[in-house]
């Protein structure tokens, strides 16, 4: 087993390489920059067989990825915060174009004032573009999730975002199993691609009935992804021996009367908070939501009639927490906003906030 000390960003780059990515177009932005620096170097040294295009903006990064994906290449890019916001138009484009681009987002707050630290509002606020979105809680998970995302995205022809907290995960080094992926993922076989030989026009005017048909097809693709993901998780386990959840996972859940729901790095920290609360006699469990899109609405059954508190590392004026908003569509729940703008979140803070919330 190949184990290397890698940051989250480096793990992302290695995952792209081992997933047989053939095209990367990217523009640097803190804290995602090291992903593309690593890829640029791997390509330069001939270790990664891909074309790396240092474009002049994130808008162009996604545009180039869409073009390359439509032309039959497995594509990858990385961005963050303002870069993701600048891509917004092309995020929509990638969805309707049915180009299964995979992108990592090192989550970061959006300015002004400038704030380079972790905050999930950049990617969460892109939820309605139709991208699949997976939120990682560890560096190893970044590696694994990218590989599985290609399998899902390419099967259902919808692009996927793999998100992880900026600095907290992007710049933290841990030993990572960079398992070769051949066998689990093979050279991209596009269901359709641009070819000089085929005079097809992609994306011309779409009348209303065809437009709604396309939107329905993408909606169905999200549903299909929900069914497909457990099979892909299983295959991934067979290939790597690692059980990496893609939809959601629970912790100390069976006898729990109350539940914390969290995403990203905070969800990892929340495990400790659960332990702390448990030792204080609180019957609390954790549901870590990994897949925000497709949204696994089956968690309604999992949550049952437990009292639910949602932790958000995002704060949307006029709304509050985005994850809270989604969960409270399913079950009555409380909201807790922690770690916005990069504030550090400790298990003790979570436990304390939870206790206060319960008291209120």
């Amino acid at each position, binding site marked *: 087993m190949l184990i290397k000390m890698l940051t989250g960003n480096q793990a992302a780059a290695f995952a792209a390489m081992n997933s047989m990515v053939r095209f990367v177009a990217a523009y640097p932005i803190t804290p995602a920059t090291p992903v593309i620096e690593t890829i640029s170097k791997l390509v330069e040294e001939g270790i990664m067989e891909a074309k790396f295009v240092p474009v002049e903006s994130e*808008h162009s990064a996604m545009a180039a990825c869409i*073009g390359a994906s439509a*032309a039959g290449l497995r594509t990858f890019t990385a961005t963050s915060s303002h870069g993701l916001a600048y891509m917004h138009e092309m995020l929509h484009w990638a969805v309707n174009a049915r180009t299964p681009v995979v992108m990592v987002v090192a989550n970061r707050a959006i300015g002004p004032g400038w704030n380079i630290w972790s905050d999930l509002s950049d990617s969460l606020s892109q939820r309605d573009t139709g991208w699949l979105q997976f939120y990682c809680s560890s560096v190893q998970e970044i590696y694994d999730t990218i590989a599985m995302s290609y399998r899902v995205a390419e099967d259902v022809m919808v692009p996927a975002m793999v998100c992880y907290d900026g600095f907290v995960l992007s710049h933290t080094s841990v030993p990572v199993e960079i398992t070769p992926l051949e066998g689990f993922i093979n050279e991209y076989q596009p269901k359709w*691609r*641009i070819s000089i030989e085929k005079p097809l026009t992609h994306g011309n005017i779409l009348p209303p009935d065809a437009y709604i048909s396309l939107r329905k097809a993408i909606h169905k693709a999200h549903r299909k992804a929900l069914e497909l993901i457990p099979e892909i998780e299983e295959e991934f386990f067979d290939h790597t021996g690692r059980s990496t959840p893609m939809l959601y996972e629970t912790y100390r859940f069976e006898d729990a009367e109350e539940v914390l729901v969290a995403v990203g790095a905070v969800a990892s920290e929340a495990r400790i908070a659960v332990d702390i609360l448990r030792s204080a006699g609180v019957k609390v469990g954790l549901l870590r939501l990994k897949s925000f899109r497709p949204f696994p609405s089956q968690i309604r059954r999992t949550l049952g009639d437990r009292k639910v508190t949602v932790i958000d590392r995002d704060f949307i004026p006029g709304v509050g927490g985005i994850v809270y908003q989604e969960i409270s569509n399913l079950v009555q729940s409380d909201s807790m906003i922690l770690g916005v703008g990069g504030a550090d979140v400790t298990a003790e803070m979570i436990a304390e906030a939870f206790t206060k919330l319960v008291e209120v």
Partner: protein
Amino acid sequence: MIEPEYFLPGSAACHGCPAAMCLRVILRALEGKAVVVVPASCSSVITGVYPHSALNVPVFNSAFAASAAVATGIRAGLDFYGEEGEVVVWAGDGGTYDIGLQSLSGAAERGEDILYICYNNEMYSNTGVQRSGATPYGAWTTTTVGGKREHRKDVAEILMAHNVPYIATASAGFLNDLYNKVRKAREIEGFRYIEILAPCPPGWRFPMDKTVEMGRLAVETGMWILYEVVEGKMRFTGLSKVIAEGKRKMKDIKEYLKLQGRFSHLSEEDIREIERYRDRRWEFLKRRANEL
């Protein structure tokens, strides 16, 4: 003599449309061996409505600002699969001069192997005639109702500063010249830029049978200058060469302006200002041609 057609009859183009006319010539010059990237523009409408298309070549529609970047990705795909043929961006002056300038500049600087062709009708015609960075001084548009107060910029000259291997200007009035320039560009690798003056009958307000005549008058009056820059070496071509060599005098610009409704309100001073601008551009380009 007659090659197959790749622009199919019955398109949604207006009567006398220069974009349809020139694209038809270009696709013949490329023998249909091209993927055409079309940003938001009249051409994204001209090609028609799903599930049909007027173009008998592969086409990829792109967001307005993104065509040169989309083309970058497609080029990489064709190279990967070993497919030979051009990736052609077919953009208007809105997608080239204004909203798409950043991605165009990026792709040019990176030396992407793309043939970028701008059909410049000197305004945003698709949205119904608004000013663009290519709209000439004095011209009426719906956002310059009293006539534009600024001169146009010149993207071909901006591309000169990018040191790309091939730049050419062309006009809907000289289609054989356009054909030849596309054939020439095809033989060159790297980023190539061709800009065509595309007189638009409804936008410029002239009768629909005068598209070619207007394209010729623009060159005859020196308002549009035909040239080529090959590996940094600039030379005038066609009628502009004859004018540059002093073998023919430029026609009075009024002959060009008076046929267009968009210039009908111009004062004598406006016309002199346009003339001064024309003369400055000639001086600049002549110096440029002599330098090398």
